[in-house]
């Protein structure tokens, strides 16, 4: 048994067979086979080499006829590579010496040739590299059959292990068969991690070297609460985790029954519970989990992994899709581009910065790239005809910035009006409060907008000047540090005095531990990852506003984050004697 520590990216427990993805996205199910199976592996290899050679020869003929000799010759080359006796000999030797499976030996042999190419580094090497990889893939596909095709065809319940996953790879996961994933690289705010949360599957990232220690099919445990992967678990550990899995499932069932109940306190105060989404496909999950709308629709996915900036129509379609799913009565808050710093877009061309979190990100980047910003605003306004749309600007740090955003929005409205293009006039506009300067100036900002949304993740990191992903200072990072509580309180009061809605959309709003505190501070709207909504609703339904206000009053008088956390744990046990923690 071996336990490895990584970064918890999405909570939950999963136990199951490992599916190891190599860096090229082809799934090699087993690295080694028992020695007595080697003869049959060698036979599989021979068949695969023969078949893929034949495939290439057939393609050579087809292509020569269709496109001419030059193109046909590419496949003649592949056929030669695939029928090469030295290659076959090398693969067979590896299998016999190391008990490698045919797939793994193929991959090792070809990769070592790719590596020697890379080492020479000249231009021919770069051109033929792709042919080597192509040949490897052809062989692997012949060996694996349909299993090798892609992740969404995985039919068993598996735990995906990889060096890293791109968001698009994660997006095609079939959550019916992929139970969890763990990666060697990546951080907690990477898009992959955020998407795992949205897909409602446990995930651990940043585990460091991992893939060499595990073979496809090995049983592994993912603990998404603590950020652990346990390889070859012993029976006692397995039993302990099976028990926790049962508890989790029980809790989920209990809260699922609340889906259609209102988020209302025992004394009748209504709380609006919204969902945070990253991709249009998650809109459905919001409704399934009983969300009253989308409180935060992140739009960065439109820019990430793209070579060009998205067109106005691409924006428009992504927004219209969500509005259509949510219907006319559920608000959808679209946050304008929040790229920069951690979320680098190749198309946006963000320059290298020494201190990106204090640099040109988010609305600052938009205000300096007006074409890009206006494209998005036009698409948002056009989409407004399809439902209850609201616009939200992120990372606003001064009143002037907010005014610039608002005047740009008016310009775009006028353009649309003049062009005779439909949009809904007077779409509600809000600003995120996630920079301490904005929180302090909340009373002034409140006069300019129809709602606030507290982005607690950034607010905490900027207030305490601490990056929670930096383990040497992560202890400073707490959403209930008294300094942060005072800011949240101040923002809630400023909003309530001006009569505008104040939402909390950071991770804090999805934690049951903080629900009473937030209500007590004057918050009546929470937006969380859809998965968390039933549990938060359960907490709300067990509270009264005087209970919550007492919690907030007590917490505001405390001096340290630790005191507040301990106090909140005790209070939660009081409100929920049946034990949610």
């Amino acid at each position, binding site marked *: 048994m071996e336990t490895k520590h990584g970064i918890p990216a999405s909570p939950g427990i999963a136990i199951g067979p490992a599916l190891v993805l190599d860096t090229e996205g082809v799934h090699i199910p087993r690295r080694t086979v028992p020695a007595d199976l080697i003869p049959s592996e060698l036979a599989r290899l021979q068949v695969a080499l023969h078949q893929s050679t034949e495939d290439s020869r057939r393609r050579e003929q087809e292509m020569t006829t269709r496109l001419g000799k030059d193109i046909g010759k590419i496949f003649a*080359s592949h056929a030669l590579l695939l029928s*090469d006796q030295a*290659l076959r000999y090398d693969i067979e030797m590896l299998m016999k010496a190391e008990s490698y499976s045919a797939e793994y030996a193929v991959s090792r042999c070809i990769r070592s*040739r790719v590596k020697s*190419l890379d080492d020479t580094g000249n231009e*021919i090497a770069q051109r033929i590299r792709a042919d080597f990889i192509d040949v490897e893939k052809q062989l692997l596909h012949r060996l694996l059959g349909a299993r090798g095709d892609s992740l969404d065809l995985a039919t068993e319940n598996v735990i995906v292990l990889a060096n890293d996953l791109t968001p698009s790879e994660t997006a095609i996961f079939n959550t019916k068969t992929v139970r969890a994933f763990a990666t060697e690289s990546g951080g907690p705010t990477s898009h992959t991690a955020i998407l795992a949360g949205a897909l409602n599957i446990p995930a651990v990232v940043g585990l460091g070297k991992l893939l060499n220690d595990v073979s496809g099919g090995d049983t592994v445990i993912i603990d998404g609460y603590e950020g652990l992967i346990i390889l070859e678990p012993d029976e006692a550990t397995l039993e302990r985790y099976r028990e926790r899995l049962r508890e989790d499932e029980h809790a989920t069932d209990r809260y699922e029954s609340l889906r259609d109940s209102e988020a209302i306190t025992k004394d009748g105060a209504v709380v609006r519970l919204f969902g945070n989404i990253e991709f249009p496909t998650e809109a459905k999950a919001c409704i399934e989990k009983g969300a009253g709308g989308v409180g935060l629709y992140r739009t960065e996915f439109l820019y990430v992994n793209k070579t060009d900036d998205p067109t106005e129509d691409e924006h428009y379609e992504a927004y219209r899709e969500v509005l259509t799913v949510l219907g006319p009565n559920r608000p959808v808050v679209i946050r304008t581009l929040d790229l920069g710093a951690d979320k680098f877009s190749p198309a946006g061309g963000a320059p290298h910065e020494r201190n990106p979190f204090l640099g040109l990100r988010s609305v600052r980047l938009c205000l300096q790239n007006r074409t890009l910003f206006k494209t998005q605003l036009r698409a948002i306004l056009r989409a407004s005809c399809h439902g209850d749309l609201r616009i939200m600007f992120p990372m606003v740090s001064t009143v002037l910035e907010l005014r610039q955003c608002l005047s740009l929005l008016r310009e775009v409205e006028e353009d649309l009006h003049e062009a005779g293009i439909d949009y809904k006039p007077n779409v509600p506009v809000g600003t995120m409060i996630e920079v301490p300067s904005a929180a302090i100036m909340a009373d002034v900002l409140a006069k300019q907008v129809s709602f606030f949304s507290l982005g607690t993740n950034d607010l905490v990191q900027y207030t305490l000047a601490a990056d929670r992903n930096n383990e040497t200072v992560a202890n400073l990072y707490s959403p209930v540090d008294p300094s942060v509580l005072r800011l949240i309180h101040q923002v809630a009061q400023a909003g309530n005095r001006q009569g505008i809605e104040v939402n909390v959309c950071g991770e804090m709003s999805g934690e049951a531990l903080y629900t009473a505190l937030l209500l007590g501070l004057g918050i009546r709207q929470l937006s969380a990852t859809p998965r968390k909504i039933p549990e938060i609703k359960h907490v709300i339904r067990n509270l009264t506003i005087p209970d919550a206000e007492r919690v907030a009053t007590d917490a505001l008088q405390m001096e340290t984050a630790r005191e507040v956390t301990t106090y909140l744990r005790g209070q939660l046990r009081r409100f929920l004697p049946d034990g949610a923690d």
Partner: protein
Amino acid sequence: MTGTLHEPVRRTVVVVNPNGLHMRPATTFAQLAAGVTCDITVWLGEKRANGKSLWDLIGLCALRGTELTVEADGPDAETIIGQFVDILASPGDPD
């Protein structure tokens, strides 16, 4: 015992194809080599490639201007070596 006493035949050639010894000429070379009884070897300095293996040949990554030595070892080495030299010395891609 094949019992012949012939020395391997060697020829030196400079790659003039602007793309170097890339996939297409190497494929032609390997296809031709596969059809002869001689052993065909190509040397780039100390680096040795089996002329019948495309992996080996393109693995040389021989750019334009590289000097290569072709070696044919077998009974008709003297008669066949010219074809191999021609491929490497060809300024364009052979068919």
